[in-house]
């Protein structure tokens, strides 16, 4: 079956949203979604790293398959993602200090974001070609950003409302995430 790039993008963005339907990248989703000003840069930084990781993983997988070393896939993916994050950090610092200041603090956190490793693993499992892999990671990153921004906006408004003290904190965030996830279920079938 051949999926068009557009279908893959829409599905990763909405119908199978990385955070709300596939449960990838929940730690930053619950941790960094308190404020809108931090949610957006975090999402953009993650999307960027996901693209780089997807690119590296695609090349690496060609290499591993050629030498029949599939059992080293996981370990090499995680190492290459960690190195890619380091590299992105160094390049940004040298060539775009402004962007580095905006994104810098989030970059080290992204190494252990399972959305990034998830992109690499899913594109391999689904045997996506180069273009498909790129759109998949772009859609996944955009979906992550969308979920993060939505969640942050809701939580900012909730600070002004009278929430029972028992429910404050993670429990409330989870309930909100559940409602968001419920509404994203309405997108199912969109990429058909």
């Amino acid at each position, binding site marked *: *079956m051949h*999926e068009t790039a557009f*279908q893959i993008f829409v*599905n990763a963005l909405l*119908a*199978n949203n990385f955070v709300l339907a596939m449960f990838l990248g929940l730690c930053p989703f619950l941790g960094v979604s308190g404020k809108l000003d931090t949610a957006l840069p975090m999402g953009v930084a993650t999307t960027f790293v996901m693209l780089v990781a997807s690119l590296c993983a695609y090349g690496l997988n060609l290499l591993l398959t050629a030498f029949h070393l599939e*059992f*080293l896939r996981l*370990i090499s993916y995680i190492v290459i993602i960690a190195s890619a994050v*380091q590299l992105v*950090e*160094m390049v940004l*610092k040298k060539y775009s200090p402004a962007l580095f200041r905006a994104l*810098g*603090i989030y970059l*080290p956190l992204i190494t252990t974001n399972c959305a990034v490793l998830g992109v690499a693993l899913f594109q391999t499992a689904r045997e996506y070609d180069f273009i498909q892999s790129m759109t998949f990671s772009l859609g996944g990153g955009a979906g992550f950003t969308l979920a993060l921004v939505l969640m942050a906006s809701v939580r900012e408004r909730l600070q002004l409302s009278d929430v029972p003290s028992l429910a404050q904190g993670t429990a409330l965030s989870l309930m909100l995430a559940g409602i968001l996830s419920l509404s994203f279920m309405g997108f*199912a*079938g969109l*990429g*058909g």
Partner: protein
Amino acid sequence: MSAEHLPIDQAPATPTGAMIRTLGLVSAICGLIIVGAYQGTYDAVAANKRIAMERAVFKVVPAAKSIEEYLAKADGGIAKAGAETPAGAIRFFAGYDEAGKLVGVAAEGSARGYADIVRVMFGYDPACQCVRNIGVVSMRETPGIGDKILVDRAFLENFKELDARLTADMKALANEIKTVKHGSKTGAWQIDAIAGATITSRAVGRAINDTAQALLPRLAPNLDKIGSKS
């Protein structure tokens, strides 16, 4: 944490040689563990995969007692399947009865359903040129709605004898296999959708049609080659 504070960027308190030695040692230990686990489980994993595949094939070709795996190559030829599938080739399974006579062919197709991709295995009977049975390899459709394709009697009735004849020049199916709205089935090549689960039903139809359109024209001229168990 900015880059300046990362341990890696600090003036090394440990000589580089020691770091490389340690990393080498760790890699060696880890390499041993991974290769050990891979080798130790290789036979069991291969056996499991074969059993799972055989179970799926026997489900859609119930008359089969043994199966062989083939590739229908892009140039129209047929070959025994190896570990890899070359570009453009379609993997399929030929099922044989006790006497070693071909009783059916099984192949897999996939299409996007409601929630995610639906992968379907279907059985093709060369004698009647029709699709006989289907089985779902994997899906994530809504429980209670989309997963009716597994159990809905009326829906499964479609695959008792689903017409998959080829045109006279054997280039394509005479009639496209298509899922139609519930209650509007008119031809033997149509699939009557489950009311309320039209998208999933359509995915099943598309999955079968895509694979059948590609596989059957290559299979038809070569049927005698796989006609009996080699």
